């Protein structure tokens, strides 16, 4: 009976080691503090009605960014714990973590940073900006957008849940390659948590991908042909196309792994005809495009930033679009470079190596075009522009390391070493993370109505740069010294320790940078009156989002703009087009709905039941989620009309 009710979840599974108890306590304290604040200020209804159930992409975008920021601090804490262990666990000292716990931490670090930080931030920025850039009042499927967000939240809760509920997290690396991740070698709940966290959040990502692709293709304002779209919209389109093609591969692959684990099937086992290398191929067929899903939108952000702050049109727009599409297509032809060392033979290795090198061509073209955009410009070195400079400087070297790794003969000596770790951190930090920081700083006035504090922002930038060098240059050197990744312990004779200690100092500087960014946010909110954006166009922008007022009203545009060229808003400004007498129209907007929360909740329960083998709960989750879909699809009243008179009134007041 107990087994029927609780499945394999027993008292023994509950938290009983210092880090799970510690995390549970901090989650509880944080939650209580937040709940207390809401109660004290009587904001529960406000939170539910204005935010959680909202289908407004701007609000969902902000919620994505808040969630991704929280997850960033979890992931950064993991990074600090990894570095601390590696700095002290040498020779006779075993450090403060056992091997399994250390392995759980780097697994969680990788998954959290990729799935819940980088993806979360980009979906947030796309939600905020894509509708504005294409002159739309909404996304194609507002409910799906809300559902995608709540599935992302469910996945994020799932990956942290073992702290509270118990069990363990996967210790098998961020991609959990079999046979290590099979039940034979990983009998605990860790890999199951991993699988279902990725299943749930991956579903949300796929829904988001479909939503943005359709939105960009179908909801552009009159006159905006594909070749008149802003670069961020273009790169988002390509990134979302990658999501749609690649995420089903992730879903299928991890589902097959779970079938192996739960039903004793043999897709990827070493026994009974299973083939683990099949998994390695499949996961990287998703995994490599995933890298570009993270990096391509950042290219778009930097294109906007460099054009705006150079006061120029983007140099070689057509070439930029072609390069983005080239990168998108090529990203599917390089997956094998992640495992040249499998012994697939020289012909296969050389083919994938050369294809990988080829990706460097469109990437270099983009960099040339950004530099050429600065040529004969009037460059204002605001924080986003600083991040752009930092990005090009670091990305060039990270890219060189990548091309080097694409040569199998070199990869045989660098694969799985800390050189590799340094390479992909250079790429992800300089492109994705700096892109996110640039994007948030750049678009903050549009969304929040005030600029972020520039001075503190620069401090954060320089701390990031110094911290980055201190953290990752030692890792490049360690890689050349023959240090492998993921070491929880090493011999004193290796001489690694000084480099790990320098890297540890680096993470302290990065932590300081992140704290300065929190401080920047607090100061900016406090002193917002001094930095208010009253014009709607604080940076002398070029694209449509700057044509509406700041902060953007919930209906985005009082009157939809028309576009006859790239940089239409810039042209209109230069031509000194005065405000024509406007004619307001009724606007159709989506109603709030809590259904996405309920549906994600049921999906979450199903995943929970799958981890702990609780049959009845799985049935509840499954039936509940199907019921939610049915109820929602019979709801005919999902939209409301905002009358023209109301818009006129709000516009006059603003």
């Amino acid at each position, binding site marked *: 009976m107990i087994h029927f009710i609780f499945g394999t979840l027993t008292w023994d599974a509950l938290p009983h080691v210092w880090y799970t108890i510690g995390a549970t306590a901090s989650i509880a304290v944080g939650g209580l503090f937040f709940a207390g604040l809401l109660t004290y200020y009587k904001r529960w209804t406000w939170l539910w009605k204005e935010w959680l159930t909202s289908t407004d992409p701007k609000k969902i975008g902000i919620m994505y960014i808040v969630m991704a920021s929280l997850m960033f601090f979890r992931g950064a804490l993991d990074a600090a714990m990894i570095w601390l262990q590696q700095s002290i666990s040498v020779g006779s000292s075993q450090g403060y973590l056992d*091997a*399994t716990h250390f*392995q759980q931490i780097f697994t969680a670090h990788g998954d959290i940073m990729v799935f819940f930080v980088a993806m979360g931030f980009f979906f947030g920025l796309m939600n905020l900006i894509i509708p504005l850039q294409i002159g739309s009042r909404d996304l194609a499927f507002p409910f799906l957008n809300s559902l995608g967000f709540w599935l992302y939240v469910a996945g994020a809760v799932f990956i942290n849940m073992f702290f509270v509920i118990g069990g363990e997290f996967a210790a098998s*690396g961020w991609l959990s390659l079999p*046979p*290590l991740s099979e039940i034979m*070698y990983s009998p605990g709940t860790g890999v199951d948590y991993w699988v279902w966290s990725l299943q749930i959040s991956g579903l949300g990502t796929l829904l988001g991908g479909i939503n943005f692709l359709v939105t960009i293709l179908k909801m552009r304002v009159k006159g905006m042909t594909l070749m008149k779209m802003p670069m961020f919209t273009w790169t988002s389109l390509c990134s979302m196309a990658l999501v749609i093609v690649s995420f089903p591969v992730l879903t299928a692959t991890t589902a097959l792994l779970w079938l192996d684990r739960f039903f004793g099937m043999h897709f990827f086992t070493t*026994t*009974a*005809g299973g*083939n*683990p*290398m099949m998994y390695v191929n499949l996961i990287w067929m998703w995994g490599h495009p995933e890298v570009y899903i993270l990096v391509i939108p950042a290219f778009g952000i930097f294109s906007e930033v460099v054009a705006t702050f150079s*006061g*120029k*049109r*983007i*140099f070689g727009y057509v070439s930029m679009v072609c390069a983005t599409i080239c990168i998108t297509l090529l990203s599917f032809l390089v997956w094998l470079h992640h*495992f040249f*060392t*499998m*012994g697939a*033979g*020289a012909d*296969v290795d*050389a083919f994938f*190596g*050369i294809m990988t*090198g080829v990706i*460097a*061509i469109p990437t*270099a073209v983009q960099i*040339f*075009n950004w530099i050429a955009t*600065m040529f*004969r*410009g009037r*460059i*204002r*070195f605001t924080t986003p522009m600083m991040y752009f*400079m930092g990005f*090009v*400087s670091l990305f060039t070297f990270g890219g*060189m390391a990548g*091309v*080097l790794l694409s*040569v*199998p*003969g070199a990869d*045989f*000596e660098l*694969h*799985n070493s800390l050189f590799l770790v340094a390479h992909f951190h250079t790429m992800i930090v300089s492109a994705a993370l700096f892109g996110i920081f640039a994007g948030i700083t750049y678009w903050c006035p549009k969304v929040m109505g005030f600029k972020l504090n520039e001075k503190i922002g620069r401090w954060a930038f320089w701390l990031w740069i110094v911290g980055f060098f201190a953290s990752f240059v030692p890792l490049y050197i360690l890689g*050349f010294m*023959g240090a*492998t990744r993921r*070491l929880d*312990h090493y*011999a004193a004779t290796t*001489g690694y320790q000084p480099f790990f200690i320098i890297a540890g100092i680096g993470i302290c500087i990065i932590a300081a940078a992140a704290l300065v960014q929190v401080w920047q946010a607090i100061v900016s909110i406090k002193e917002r009156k001094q930095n208010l954006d009253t014009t709607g166009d604080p940076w002398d922008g070029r694209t449509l989002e700057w044509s509406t007022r700041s902060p953007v009203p919930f209906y985005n545009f009082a009157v939809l703009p028309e576009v006859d060229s790239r940089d239409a808003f810039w042209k209109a400004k230069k031509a000194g087009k005065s405000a024509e007498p406007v004619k307001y129209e009724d606007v159709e907007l989506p109603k709030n709905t809590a259904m996405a929360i309920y549906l994600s909740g049921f999906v979450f329960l199903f995943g929970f039941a799958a981890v702990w083998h609780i049959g009845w709960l799985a049935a509840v989750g499954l039936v509940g989620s199907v019921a939610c879909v049915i109820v929602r699809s019979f709801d005919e009243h999902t939209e409301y009309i905002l009358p023209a008179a109301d818009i006129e009134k709000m516009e006059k007041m603003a």
Partner: protein
Amino acid sequence: MSGGVFDPQGPIALQERNLIILVVVIMLCVAIPMLILLYTFAWKYRAGNKKAKYDPEHVGSAWRQLVWWAIPAVVIVVIAVINWQSTHALDPYKAIPSSNPPLTIQVVALQWKWLFIYPAQGIATVNYIQFPVNTPIHFELTADAPMSSFWIPELGSQIYAMAAMQTQLDLEASSIGEYTGKDTEINGAGYAGMTFLAKSTSQADFNAWVVSVQDAGTYPALDLNTYNTLAEPSQNNPPAYYSSYDKDLYNTILMKYAASAATGTVVGTSTMPADMPGMQM
């Protein structure tokens, strides 16, 4: 720095180090001018410099784009040629030409130690290999554990060791010395301690070492029972030596996963994953 990729002690590692330097130098030819341009433009066209020309409509021309595409394309074509040639030259399965006959060592990755079998010498070791200098070593690798990767940085290439499959690796040491071999692929709790000593010695010292290990009075035999005990998970294993081993041991390990008692699959090549070049039975 001593040790590692930049301290090659064999022909493969030497070629790989030179390859790394060559590719980096070629790429720097583009990267450095590019970064100089970046900083020059950033300085020259800063907003404070009103003397610099300002041309907001300047968007370039088709021929300039052609140059943009051509420069990296040329570099990548050069690297592609190097890539193709070096990949074939450094194919880990390729025998190293030498006047000395190669020494074969069979490698089994276990949780979490390396088992080495010397078929010609009839001995086996754990976490220790010794081999003569200037002699090609032909490794045949498999695993009775999660996927592992076999790497001796000073000697060159690494390769995966996978259960039910066999990979190969050819290395050679050109100087006498001791090197640390390691696993580079996460394979469980004992991952970090899965290192071994690789010792290159003179042919005479090697022969003497073989004879000493062959002494059944000093070192035990590795029969299947002993192997099964050895294969149990254990961490940070010290070197161990076996004066002889069960002649079918390596093939038994290789076939252990291919033949499944559960499904009654017939043992044979048809049950082996067919997509692994170099698979040999």
